[in-house]
């Protein structure tokens, strides 16, 4: 029988060291021994990703490491998430529409941001990549999602985001828009009318982790 703290530590370290087997073992053991799966996700897996974000900010980890940490995190998440009671999941019952805009087939940053929403227990509507602009609007309307997150890797596709924001804000000004991708700067995000931005795949993780950290604080 392991203590809660031991299992949280094992989950956290497994994510940071991108070791999938210890994460899998700890997640299963946590369930078998009756610990709260949401606590294991937020204070184990998400806490691990928080460390990963710090390592990225300090130029110790780069995107390859983050991708492997993400794989380890998903191993734990896939075991734990089905056991989180619906009423408890994420605590926010929030929904997000996410995708890479038309003309852009890059999706690493998008997938890392998606992971952050998955961890936080959001309902994620992933439209994939090369998504026609109107599709973001239709999906937001269909799902009544609170957040729309768009990614563009190239300057040439970035301007599509502006059109989507205009279309969505016309119909529903309360939707929060997140932008990400190499050409997107704070200035561009502000100019396009977005509510948040991340400039790179790694930065998206870092920003997402800060968001999860805030959620973790809110839940305590």
């Amino acid at each position, binding site marked *: 029988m392991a203590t809660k703290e031991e299992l949280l530590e094992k989950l956290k370290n497994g994510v940071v060291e991108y070791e999938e087997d210890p994460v899998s073992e700890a997640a299963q053991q946590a369930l078998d021994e009756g610990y709260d799966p949401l606590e294991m996700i937020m204070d184990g897996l998400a806490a691990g990703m928080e460390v990963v974000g710090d390592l990225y900010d300090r130029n110790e980890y780069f995107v390859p490491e983050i991708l492997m940490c993400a794989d380890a995190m998903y191993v734990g998440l896939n075991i734990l998430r089905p056991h989180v009671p619906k009423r408890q999941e994420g605590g926010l019952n929030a929904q997000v529409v996410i995708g890479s805009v038309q003309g852009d087939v890059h999706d690493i940053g998008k*997938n890392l941001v998606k992971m952050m929403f998955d961890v936080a227990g959001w309902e994620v509507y992933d439209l994939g990549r090369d998504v026609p602009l109107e599709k973001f609007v239709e999906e937001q309307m269909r799902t009544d999602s609170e957040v729309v997150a768009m990614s563009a890797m190239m*300057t040439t596709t970035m301007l599509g985001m502006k059109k989507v924001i205009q279309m969505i804000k016309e119909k529903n000004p309360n939707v929060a828009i997140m932008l990400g991708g190499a050409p997107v700067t704070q200035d561009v995000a502000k100019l396009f009318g977005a509510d948040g931005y991340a400039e790179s795949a790694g930065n998206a993780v870092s920003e997402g982790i800060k968001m999860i950290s805030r959620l973790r604080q809110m839940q305590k």
Partner: protein
Amino acid sequence: MPELSARERVERVFRREPVDTMPFFSGMGMVLRPAIKELGYKFPQIHRDPVKLARAAILSSKMFGFDSVVVPFDMCCESQAIGNTISLYEDSEDTLYPTIPEKMWKSMDEVEIPADIADHWPISLIYEAIKIVKKEAPEYPIGAWQLGPFTMAGQVLELDILLKGIFKQTAKVEATLDKLADMIIAIGQKLQAAGADYITLREMGTGTDLISPRTWKNIIQPRIRKILEAWKSPKILHICGATNLLIEMMNDCGADAISVDIKNNLAESREKLGKNTLLFGNFDVFALPCKEETTVEQAVEGIKTNIDGGVDAVWPGCDLWPDIKEANMKAIVETARTYGKKPSPAVGRL
């Protein structure tokens, strides 16, 4: 003071000989909407027709006074030649470059490149386009480019396979990059044989916002060196994103000039490189020529800041985005001419 031709100006810059004023040129795409419109073309049509490709490139340079003509514009020729299907977005009125929606190779084990790939269509149409430019606009130096092996790998495989493979399957990643490096060498040599006056190796996806300096040194640099060694001068190495931690290694690959984008701190780079290295780029291709709210005066100030930062040419930090504001674009080139009369760190003035 003699007025140099565009060709003379660019050739002299590469030899680090004095010029009359700073050139405005690029090693990446410089096709602009006003030229496409005047020619009566649609954006999706220009990528796979050598005549349209050449004429759109020539007229873009002529209309705005650039010092070179660059072909091609899109990054999918090699991947298409290998066998992938591309999206041209023929029904879209927006500026959308071709993409590869689905890559046929699902793992590094499948990567097999035909020995004669450099002769395959549509790569071959770039050689034709270069010959057309040479014939129809001999006054311009012609720039051509190839993606670097890591960036090219992302055009034939899902990038996360490569990124994760750096740690888990290092030998496979290196073997894949070696195959692509050989292809890039062969194509680059044919671009030069067709008449390209200078060539840019765009290893765009290897900035330190993606991979570590150590990975760059161990995995990327050896292939870049090999490619540049196989090409004739002048040759330029370009990397997008965060490059300050790499800039000295970039300068140790055999390139005649280094090109960076807006995320590079120019002053820091110049200090590390010294005054003798040709340094290009760092000009914001969205904010200055395209952004609706940017005034002509702001565009001019932006270019002055770029020149003061220590570049040796006004050289876009990425492909010029086709939907420019004409007045801003003209003012940017004019500023290179007027404000660029003073010597740059590596190039004196006549």
